[in-house]
């Protein structure tokens, strides 16, 4: 069996989900036997170099770059997995949904208690910067997502079991403790 190829990315997330991937501990050695990583912060490959089997997305979309990366993943991955609360629901960043984006920007750059050095009241508008979306969107609102792994972050065992299932094509082992949250 040829090795499956995996890619990962963090969009509007906190990298906690990636940390949870690393939490599979020494099983990462088993994983390396089973898969090859392509574009991912784990190996710092920036561009896809080939078609990938499984793309893992952390975080939802809060700006135009997130949208672009997500679409780029969809084009290059056969299976896309939304990993964690932010990817699935928007998560913590989506708390701004419901507050007009103008107010958010104003608070962040002009009015907020931590804004000290912006006397000229500059709002970031360089063309190089990603553009902010009106809301933070879950990934499945932007592209088709095939699987969802809930949790904030999803437990390492959940990630491991899901990857094993996807790689081997077997049914996923989902013991109750893995999906019980309270």
């Amino acid at each position, binding site marked *: 069996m040829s090795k499956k190829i995996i890619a990962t990315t963090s969009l509007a997330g906190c990298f906690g989900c990636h940390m949870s991937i690393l939490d599979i501990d020494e099983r990462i050695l088993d994983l390396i036997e089973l898969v090859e990583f392509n574009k991912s912060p784990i190996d710092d490959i920036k561009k896809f170099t080939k078609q990938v089997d499984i793309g893992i997305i952390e975080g939802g979309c809060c700006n*135009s770059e997130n*949208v*672009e990366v997500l*679409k780029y993943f969809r084009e290059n991955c056969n299976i896309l997995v939304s990993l964690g609360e932010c990817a699935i629901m928007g998560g913590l960043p989506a708390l701004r949904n419901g507050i*007009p*984006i*103008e107010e958010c*920007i104003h608070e962040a750059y002009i009015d907020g208690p931590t804004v000290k050095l912006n006397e000229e009241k500059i*709002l*970031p*508008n360089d*063309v190089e910067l990603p*553009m*902010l*979306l*009106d*809301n933070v*969107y879950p990934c*499945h*609102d*932007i*592209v*088709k997502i095939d699987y969802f792994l809930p949790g904030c972050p999803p437990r390492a065992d959940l990630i491991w079991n899901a990857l094993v299932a996807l790689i081997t094509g077997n049914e996923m082992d989902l013991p109750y403790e893995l999906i019980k949250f309270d």
Partner: protein
Amino acid sequence: MKEKIKTILQKYNNDRGRLMDILIDLMENSGYIDDFSVSVLAEDLKISAAQVRETISFYHFFSEKPKAKFNIYLNNSITSCLRGFSSIKSTFEAESGIKFGEISSDGLIGLFETSCVGMNDQGPAAIINDKIFTNLTPYRARKLIESIKDGKTLDGLVYENYGDGNNSHPLMNSMVYNNIRKKSILLDENYERFDVIKNIIKNSSSEEVIQIIEDSNLRGRGGAGFPTGLKWKFGSRMPGEHKVIICNADEGEPGTFKDRVMLTQYNDLVFEGMVLSAFATKADMGVLYLRYEYKYMLKYLNSILDEMRENNLLGSNISGIEGFNFDIRIQLGAGAYVCGEESALIESMEGKRGEPRDKPPFPVEKGYLDLPTIVNNVETLASAVKIVKNGAKWYSSFGTKDSLGTKLLSVSGDCRFPGIYEVEWGTSIREVLEMAGADNVQAVQVGGPSGTLINVKDIDHLSKTELMKWYKPSGMMAAQKSFDRKLSYSDLPTGGSIIIFNKERDILSDVVMNFMDFFIEESCGSCSTCRNLPRIMKEKLQKIINGHGVRDDIDDLLNWGKIIKVSRCGLGQTAANPVLSSILNFRHLYEEHVMAMTDYDNQFDLGKSVSAANSFVGRKLIHKHS
């Protein structure tokens, strides 16, 4: 101000449990509950300000902001929408110069929307300062605003005679009509007021009464159909000095209004039923929980209770029965559909947010103030009186084998004769439509939004077993010979709401969307499933209606409909039914809308989504994105 609050508090003995009544009195007094009142209440009731506020914020008719002199609550239920809601709404807005949700700057007029007010047979209706205004039209809306601006009083706004029967009793002065279209054994004249209390229970034991009710197979008429005899037996066997009988008159299921008519015209029968069940279960405390929308009946109902007290039909040693002490008080709700759920109702009666309790324990074990509590629907209690009077054998000569007796139907929607029909169980939908004069029918909603949407055609998309996998209550079965289906506990159980839709109606955007809005509005918010799923289901449905749906969307809806069943109470458990039931019986409507050749579509538009931020930061160049 402080004096006023103190007087109200004294009236209720500074009892924290009577917070609902205290707040209702305060609203009546001051029009709203300000910060100062909250702090006085908190101090004197020995609870935190947050506890006062959490109750205030739960109920539709409480407000922490000043209200207007005339607050117009226009009903947005489905039949109201079918009969011109939107043009009436825009007339109100145009004439008063404000939008719904606002109050005019001079404080004269406030406009608000509200869920079904129990007037589906004479809608669109509005409540203005506790008074009901029925059969609204844009013309009447304009006249109402004109009269208010002319300085008329509330009573001066009444545009017609008062309604029929007790509706025009001086203590009621209401323009509501009973619209009773068909009477049978519950509503007929064969009734001697309070005969059962005066003459029958005197010579029977509590066990005998319960036996008759058990033999009659009477089942709860509030929707769930629990055997009444059994409930009373449990109640009677519970130990304890104090027990409670609650008559559930919250009647919030859109499309039902039979309890309103019972309480208007047959209140003696209902109160007699409460006394009867108190006798059977040895209860000493009785409460009629009356939805706020029916507040116009309060004075009148209290006068009946007074009359009963004077005649020793309430109070101590009732009707000369040694040791039979029982009295009834009326508890007003404050506008929350979920308070019809018995444990939420009890929470509300204790002055708290109307959030359903976890069960068990059931109310009959541990209910109001932790006392054994028997909750019954208005119609159930009234039926019990007729049964005890005439015998179980008599009763079982009506109805079908599994559903004995009769049922009050509240019929509304597209028909010539909306109103109350008392039919025997086993009556078919076709017969009901004939009685009500409904032609050109496309669909019938049986049992309100939480019930079943029946298709006029006999469509059988899913096998029954397939369906049962994701839906439990027997109410929703594959539509076989839909219109010949019979109203009964085994085929089509119902709390009695029947809403008829003709062929002009758009099932998805007129009906299903309206019902989903109802559940979204009325969820108490405790369970994440019930708080969120109806909302995202509605969004998904809108996406399908917009022509952006794909086949997977229909599957998503079905799957989410399964998940929502884990919700705590019946509201959440049935909140997906409008969607599930319409997919089941009108699947072609969904399939017409979804794109057959695409397997994914989002309505996401990057350009649109970044435009607000871009223009705010003054960013000119918008990249062309893929």
